[in-house]
């Protein structure tokens, strides 16, 4: 059998992409999931705050996932669980997905289109190289989230958290509610990497100190973690001697960033973007390889699942258009991250494929107040987005209407942070 669309990953991006592709008349859609159930990371994100943009209500992660899982079931979209994708090979009009699972063993699945939705994984302790010992008790925040919320294990009682990403903040509250004592959240940067509402409701509510411009300089303990040395850093992120402080603890959680999981993408030879660590994508999330699409955290790390779902709808539409031979491959615009912007997605736009507007997702490099994001083609200012405050933790959504873009010749759209005009 030759599938129309095979989706690599049954998390929020994969579910929404599958539903959209099927609704847009792709017939044989298949979801491949390596875990024992669909839903991905949402299953362990039991806190509320999901779906404010999509459903106008505050759902928990499992509720948000179930909404899409139910649609997958209603539409009769098949899925393989406990199934690991080993490789994707491009054979022109057909792609071959090599997979393995316990029941069927090894399989080579043929498909016309592929949507990559593998998500991301946490930066581990090895990636940040903290000096000291390597005792048990050092975890990534997401691992502990799974232990506590799904498996029912509490990994410790006295906790220090390094990094103020959202998972770290959420876990500070979760560990506190389950009876642990969280001593502090240390953040290397002078600002938090989490959403404001998480700082208030996860740290301030429980009087957990957020130590900005602080890092961990030593891990103590040979078998089990006994404590960490915490020190202040200067403007160049270098440790200030004499500011070291020993904090006793049995558990250290790391919330120090997420990396899109793109081994399959790279092996297949899809063009990558070093700014996002994801693939280069177009307005319908088409990659450089015809018939291969990508969406969600495997393209760029999102802070809200609502925008993952939004992006997945684009990829689902894109795959359906490709199958019908209606996907335009002429690139009208490329995008560039100018001053103050660290990346822009999509990196390419084929205007013929756009219905009403293009939403450009981007992140700023630092905290900006009373600035605007301006979009230029050549020297011409084509659109402006005003924000009172721009934070690296909050993705900027910059929408530009098709009829505005259509007024300009093909070229490069450059996004820059500039002073607001009075």
């Amino acid at each position, binding site marked *: 059998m030759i599938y129309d669309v095979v989706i690599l990953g049954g998390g929020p991006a994969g579910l929404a992409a599958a539903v959209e592709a099927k609704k847009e008349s792709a017939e044989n859609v298949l979801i491949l999931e390596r875990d024992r159930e669909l839903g991905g990371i949402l299953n362990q994100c039991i806190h509320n705050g999901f779906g404010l943009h999509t459903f106008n209500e505050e759902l*928990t992660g*499992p509720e948000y996932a179930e909404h899409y899982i139910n649609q997958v079931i209603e539409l009769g979209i098949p899925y393989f669980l406990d199934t690991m994708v080993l490789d994707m090979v491009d054979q022109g009009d057909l792609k071959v997905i090599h997979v393995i699972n316990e029941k069927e063993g090894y399989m080579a699945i043929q498909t016309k289109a592929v949507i990559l939705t593998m998500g991301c994984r946490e930066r581990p302790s090895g990636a940040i190289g903290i000096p000291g010992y390597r005792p048990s008790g050092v975890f990534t925040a997401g691992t502990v989230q799974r232990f506590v919320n799904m498996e029912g294990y509490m990994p410790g009682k006295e906790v220090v958290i390094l990094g103020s990403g959202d998972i770290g903040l959420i876990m500070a509250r979760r560990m506190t509610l389950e009876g642990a004592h969280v001593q502090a959240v240390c953040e290397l940067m002078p600002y938090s990497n989490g959403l404001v509402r998480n700082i208030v409701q996860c740290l*301030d*509510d429980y009087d957990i100190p957020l130590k900005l411009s602080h890092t961990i300089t030593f891990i103590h303990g040979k078998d089990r973690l006994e404590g960490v040395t915490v020190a202040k850093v200067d403007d160049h992120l270098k440790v200030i001697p004499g500011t070291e402080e020993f904090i006793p603890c049995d558990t250290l959680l790391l919330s120090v960033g997420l990396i899109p999981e793109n081994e399959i993408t790279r092996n297949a030879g899809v063009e990558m973007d070093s700014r996002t660590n994801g693939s280069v994508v177009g307005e319908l999330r088409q990659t450089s390889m015809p018939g291969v699409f990508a969406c969600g955290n495997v393209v760029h790390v999102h802070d809200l699942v609502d925008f993952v779902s939004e992006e997945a709808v684009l990829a689902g539409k894109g795959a359906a258009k490709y199958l019908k031979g209606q996907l335009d491959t002429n690139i009208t615009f490329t995008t560039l991250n100018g001053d103050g912007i660290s990346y822009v997605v999509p990196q390419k736009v084929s205007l013929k494929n756009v219905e009403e507007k293009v939403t450009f997702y981007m992140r700023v490099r630092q905290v900006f107040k009373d600035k605007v994001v301006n979009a230029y083609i050549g020297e011409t200012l084509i659109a402006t987005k005003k924000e009172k405050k721009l934070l690296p933790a909050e993705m900027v959504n910059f929408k530009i209407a098709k009829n505005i873009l259509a007024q300009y010749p093909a070229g490069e759209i450059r996004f820059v942070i500039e002073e607001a005009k009075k």
Partner: protein
Amino acid sequence: MKKNMTCIVCPIGCQLTVEPKNDGTFEVTGNGCKRGPKYAYAEMTNPTRMIPTTVVIKNAMLPRLPVKTAQPIPKGQIFDAMAAINQVVVEAPIKTGDVVLKNLLGLGIDVVSTRTMNKC
């Protein structure tokens, strides 16, 4: 007594200073818009929070079932609520929205399941 808080109505996160006045009202400064004083008033008089947590589930694929309070509960009763919810043990199958604990702490608010778990 003066109190400092971060407004979370929108992502700007204005630093509010709230000062109670003799007539029972509050003077709010530092807010960028008129939603700030409203948020501050609720936080000063009746702060509430949703409590998402887990309970023990038997005969399911996993040993824990995620649950939440059906409505926000008073912030001061969070730890009492956790102690009560942690006593709950349920049996699969459970559907999203099933009540796992009725009338939490006599507040008239139920604790409900936030996912479906089949028997296995």
